């Protein structure tokens, strides 16, 4: 009664209606629900049109369209591809109103199901022998299907296992889990390989159980979330730690875990932050260059020819400004900037990691307070007690005013 095309559209309409209901209940979103309902209406209209026009294969006023159309001469075999195609179409629509990856998955499903459907329909018309038709289809598609199916299955298994690895409580646990799985795979593989009469069905069954188990555990682990992964210690984190936990910080210094004092005031090497810092950087945007000269002074260069007073750099407020620090001194040094005491009473400084001789580092500053409001800035002079200052720990002559209007 219904033609092939209209069956697809009816299926798509049904999925769209279900998705609209599910989305509306789950997300409580008006826009998404309206979108899905619109899609359902559009698909339903197309389904009705297509059913009326008999897939446009015959004239609307033909009295016996079912018996005379070319599409009706040979009944199509049972196939899940139209269902997959319709599912992919609805996934696309759902992805348009939810997440982009869902949309991409929908497109992939539509392309794959569409291609498979087209090939199957073509193969079924190749001859009157279904077995030969199946062989022809296999010859064309198996070379692509099996590797892709294998890659996708492997990808899904690997991804599921990766969620498990990220979910486990520690790195040690992940090593144990990985070793355990590898051992199980080795044992199972050896068992099957050593039995001459192992049936394909049994092997397939064991693999399927194993795959489903990993998929289920991986899904559960993914939904539960990753374990807390420790953050790499940057210079900003060291400053924060020193300000917010001064006792523990001092204790760490006493135990020799790190040098004393604030990192941005210290010419010594701190763990993690100063370790393996890249000594070459490149920035496309125009930057302010600050150079620690061999004589121990700070020189700077800004974009565009200027007549700027060498006493200071002026940058706009509340706008990220990039500085490249180049060390031409004869020792490892860092560039620091002193913002004085902030509203919470903490010493506010920022700095680069230690820079080797001839190395470079980037410092991006976003300054929200004007420099005339600076408090407690120690610039080592009695002049201009306000303002912010660049300085280089360990090089007393390296000072440069930073002005923020």
């Amino acid at each position, binding site marked *: 009664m219904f033609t092939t095309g209209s069956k697809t559209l009816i299926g798509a309409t049904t999925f769209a209606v279900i998705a609209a209901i599910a989305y509306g209940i789950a997300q409580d979103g008006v826009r998404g629900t309206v979108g899905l309902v619109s899609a359902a209406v559009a698909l339903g209209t197309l389904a009705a049109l297509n059913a009326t026009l008999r897939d446009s294969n015959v004239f609307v006023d033909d009295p016996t369209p079912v018996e005379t159309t070319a599409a009706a001469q040979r009944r199509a075999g049972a196939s899940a591809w139209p269902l997959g195609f319709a599912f992919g179409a609805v996934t696309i629509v759902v992805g348009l109103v939810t997440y982009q990856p869902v949309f991409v998955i929908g497109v992939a499903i539509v392309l794959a199901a569409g291609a498979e459907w087209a090939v199957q329909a073509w193969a079924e018309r190749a001859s009157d022998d279904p077995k030969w038709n199946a062989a022809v289809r296999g010859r064309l598609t198996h070379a692509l299907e099996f590797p892709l199916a294998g890659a996708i299955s492997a990808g899904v298994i690997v991804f599921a296992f990766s969620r498990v690895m990220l979910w486990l409580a520690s790195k040690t646990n992940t090593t144990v889990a990985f070793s355990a799985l590898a051992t199980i795979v080795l044992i199972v593989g050896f068992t099957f390989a050593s039995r001459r009469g192992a049936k394909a069905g049994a092997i397939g069954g064991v693999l399927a159980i194993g795959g489903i188990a990993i998929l289920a555990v991986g899904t559960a682990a993914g939904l539960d979330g990753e374990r807390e992964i420790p953050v790499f210690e940057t210079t900003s984190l060291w400053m924060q730690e020193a300000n917010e936990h001064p006792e523990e910080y001092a204790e760490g210094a006493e135990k020799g875990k790190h040098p004393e004092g604030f990192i941005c005031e210290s010419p010594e090497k701190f763990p993690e932050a100063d370790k393996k810092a890249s000594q070459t950087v490149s920035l496309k945007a125009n930057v302010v260059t600050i150079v620690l000269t061999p004589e121990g002074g700070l020189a700077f260069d800004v974009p*565009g*020819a200027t007549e700027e*007073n060498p006493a200071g*750099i002026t940058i706009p407020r*509340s*706008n990220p400004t990039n500085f490249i620090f180049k060390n031409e001194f004869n020792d490892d040094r860092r560039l620091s900037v002193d913002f004085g005491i902030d509203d919470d009473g903490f010493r506010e400084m920022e700095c680069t990691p230690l820079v080797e001789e001839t190395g470079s580092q980037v410092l991006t500053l976003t300054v929200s307070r004007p420099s*005339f409001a600076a408090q407690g800035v120690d610039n080592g002079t009695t002049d201009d007690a306000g303002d912010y200052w660049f300085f280089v720990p360990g090089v007393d002559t390296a000072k440069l005013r930073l002005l923020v*209007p």
Partner: protein
Amino acid sequence: MPHRKTGTSVKPVSTSTRRRKGLRVGAFAAIGLFGAGCAQNAPQDTWDPAGENAQKIHDLQWPVFAIAGVVGVIVLAVIAFAVFKFRDRGQPIPEQTHGKPKLEIALTILPALILIGVAVPTVGTLMALNETNDTECVVNVTGQQWWWEFDYPVQDGCGGIDSPIITSGQMVIPADTNVLIRGTSRDVIHSFWIPRLNGKRDMVPGRIHTLRMQANEPGIYAGQCAEFCGLSHANMRMEVAALNDADFEAWKANQLADYESPTDELALRGEQTFITNCSRCHQVNGLTDAEGELVVSRPDLQVYSGAAPNLTNLMTRNTFAGATWDLIDPQRRAEVWEATPEEFGDLYLEGVTSSTLNSVDLREWLRNSPQKKPMYAEPGRLEQTDGLVRGMPYLALSEDQIDELIAYLLERK
């Protein structure tokens, strides 16, 4: 529908109908032509350069326009001739031919030669406009939805500036001086354009773009953002006021003068109202609270893009709210805009007084800013910006508070 074969004919259109159509077309064309030349007050007229760089652009665009105009007229005339002469009068369809290599080659080479002729001075002008080595004064320009901030860094140029100056809406430059503009943006891409002084330069967040600007003589020059930047892009304007050297020094000194607390009672109350309602975002340099502590604004905590206009010397400017409205009344505005170069400096430095204040627009702005200028500042629109505003929010000020604020702001110069 059958195709008409070569040699068949159709009934021609009547002469009177053709004549009526022709008259209608001609009338519209004439109206358009004359209407295009009717602009009397065009402060952003690129055909009226007032600076060296604008003159370079002008010197390029005139000959290119002339060439393009001649070519355009010829092409239109040939089309019109062909349309008229070979219009359908029932004659047989002419024989269809294909390929005239010599004509095609000629019609390719000729435009190429014309374009090469245009490209040479164009490239030369572009390279000349990019030169910034001869600048003598630096101004940092920062675009933000939907206003412009100008700050003058510490420098030897501009006659020497020892402490940064900050202003917004109106950029003041010394006349007859090459000014280097270092431009950036705090949020989206804007474009800085003062048509009578220079071409456009995009202001891109995370980048600094330089532009050279120069005004031949003292005066005021209008501009606006030239890159669509959101809801109030059309309301993001700016002005450049060029002053002679002496006036510029006087302006600088005034900008760096120490803060003076008002003596007038209403203005004093306005100072408190400002501290309570406005200082969260707007900075007035030197303003202190009752305990003598500096009042430091934190617009980064209120405004999505991180800053708000500095109002330290608001009444030395002629405009507010992204230079969208005048702070001065229409009569005063006309005086300023029509002043001769010799008169302009004194008029501009006088600033806004109580007798020349445009209190209508300022009151409306203080009463309900989002209603006056489209911005993302209403509570219902803040979801996407984590509760931070784009623009000035509605402050629910009473009329008394507005009176106090205006009295206070009038003394900010």
